[in-house]
């Protein structure tokens, strides 16, 4: 089932939770709503589920206006962050609940219900746990029961609210891959909410980034990561180094490095053709886009700390002219580290491979230039 949102807005008292939301989710998509807490992503999910009614706008299911449909008519499976299992029912009873409460005409026989619930438990690899109670299961197992329960009523859409938020990282990783596989097998439309950009990039086909109740960018994960259209998205989707842009004789500089190559697009729109970026501009550089050179060519810096994290090595660098308590962060490959052997206190040179300049409140970015 395809879902479309048209001009959705919702207030809670004085607080505008979401506004001006337009979104199309094609049938079979796996979409992530990504944003910091308080950005309205859960509200949006609850509006799609029918748990909240929007103040303005329309929710379309397969092109039909579903804005005021009660939740039980929407055929959505909803999975909560804290599982929301019925703790007085066994795991099997939990999964069978949606079938047992169907009106008599539509309800399958007791044996058929049991069989279906059991096969769903097998699907989530919990066939052995049917007689257990939720309190006897681990967090990851409980979330899988919640998924099986949601799937029991053959939903057209699966909505997941921070489904892995309460789990530890190992289990989370496993469940992400498992959700992706399940989605590919069963072909329903899925939307999940997360504040974890890595989770969104890893699992989803499309990510939609929200901030303060608005959609700020959407697209396929790699694209959004590589070409953020605002400083907010750039910062939110990964580590960044942030430097003020200095203007000098019509050229833009970050420290001693000339970054004018990318400055034109960040210039104020009111002065067409100007090459100088607006005042208060910032330049954002991802840690892996900083080149650390042992020959001290470029921006002179001192190595403050070296942290080996498996295949990558993170260096903290105090660049000349920068406050010591605001070091730059660079990431280099393990191979390169093994070749160069940077040590704490060593003098190095920095260059930027890619960067993006954003005027204050910029919407469109300045694509980064080539190496300086």
């Amino acid at each position, binding site marked *: 089932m395809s879902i479309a949102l048209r001009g959705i807005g919702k207030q809670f008292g004085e607080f505008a939770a979401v506004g001006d939301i337009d979104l199309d989710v094609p049938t079979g998509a796996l979409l992530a709503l990504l944003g910091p807490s308080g950005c309205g992503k859960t509200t949006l999910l609850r509006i799609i*589920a029918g*748990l909240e009614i929007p103040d303005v706008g329309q929710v379309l299911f397969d092109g039909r206006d579903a804005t005021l449909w009660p*939740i*039980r008519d929407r055929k959505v499976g909803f999975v909560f962050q804290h599982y*929301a299992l*019925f703790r007085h029912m066994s795991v099997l009873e939990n999964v069978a609940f*949606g079938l047992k409460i169907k009106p008599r005409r539509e309800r399958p026989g007791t044996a058929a219900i049991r069989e279906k619930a059991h096969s769903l438990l097998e699907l989530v690899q919990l066939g052995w746990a049917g007689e257990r109670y939720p*309190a006897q299961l681990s967090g990851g197992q409980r979330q899988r029961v919640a998924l099986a329960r949601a799937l029991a009523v053959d939903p057209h859409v699966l909505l997941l609210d*921070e489904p892995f938020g309460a789990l530890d990282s190992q289990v989370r990783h496993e469940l992400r891959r498992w959700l992706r596989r399940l989605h590919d097998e069963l072909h329903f439309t899925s939307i999940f*909410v997360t504040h974890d950009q890595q989770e969104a990039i890893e699992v989803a086909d499309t990510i939609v980034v929200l901030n303060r109740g608005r959609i700020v960018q959407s697209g396929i994960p790699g694209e959004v990561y590589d070409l953020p259209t605002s400083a907010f998205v750039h910062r939110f989707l990964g580590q960044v180094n942030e430097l003020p842009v200095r203007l000098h004789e019509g050229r833009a500089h970050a420290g001693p490095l000339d970054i004018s190559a990318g400055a034109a697009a960040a210039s104020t729109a009111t002065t067409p053709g100007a090459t100088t970026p607006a005042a208060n501009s910032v330049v954002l550089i991802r840690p892996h886009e900083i080149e650390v050179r042992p020959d001290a060519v470029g921006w002179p810096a001192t190595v403050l700390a070296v942290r080996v994290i498996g295949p990558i090595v993170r260096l903290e660098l105090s660049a000349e002219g920068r406050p010591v308590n605001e070091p730059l962060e660079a990431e280099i490959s393990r191979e390169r580290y093994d070749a160069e052997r940077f040590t704490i206190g060593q003098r190095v040179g920095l260059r930027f491979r890619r960067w993006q300049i954003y005027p204050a409140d910029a919407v469109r970015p300045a694509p980064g230039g080539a190496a300086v």
Partner: protein
Amino acid sequence: MMQTLTQTRGPRRRPQLARLLLIVLALAFLGIFLVLPLLAVFVQALAKGVGAYFAAVSDPMAWSAIKLTILVAAVAVPLNLVFGVAAAWAIGKFEFRGKSALITLIDLPFAVSPVIAGLIFVLVFGIHGWFGGCLRMHHIRIVFAVPGIVLATLFVTFPFIARELIPVMQAQGKDNEETALSLGANGWQTFWHVTLPNIRWGLLYGVLLCNARAMGEFGAVSVVSGHIRGMTNTMPLHVEILYNEYNYTAAFAVASLLALLALLTLAGKSVLEWRRPELRRAARKPRDRTRRERT
């Protein structure tokens, strides 16, 4: 092995002494303020033998007081059950204007002295009260009759079930109900299969407390009852009358029935817990808090 045990025990001796002292204190407190009075009731009741006890209990006046007390509880408890669940449901699961005012209102009977509560009904429904003339015209008696006693009891026991359920429902949040709705349940199915099982312990406890108070209420009922023997005397009022007549054995015999009732309800609760092991587990386990974070 023994040696290491005694060695580790050495430095703990003082805390153990403190522990022992605290246990003795707690037990002494329990004994003096709970067990002793309870025992005294039964000892006094049986002081003149089993024959006198049964004679006092089966006295027609006592019997009519027992019947009236049960009648009052049988009306007041179900009404407050319905009201309490409805109020707690509204307060625990929904946001609306005037919510805090409603909570305060529910607490009102706790704050008001029972005597005042009784007087309110005399003022409103008494012969010289607001509706007195109207009621007399239709030959309806409320004050100094059974309806007045029921009304006073309803008022006094008003908060018990709601107060017990509101924190439980608030802590549980709406996730379970919303899940049930998304699985296709209607409102009634959601309430019956999901909400009610989740609150059953709070509900049972609330009903027990409400029932105990409904049967034991003295002040408010005393004002509206008129103390007509065999007509408007409840058990607590009957105990008082017997006591004032220096008929200690009979007074304590009827009192012992009230005490017995309390013990029986507590025993009933224990049996219920014991017979359903998965409930016992659920009751003992801390609830996995369903925290709602709106993002």
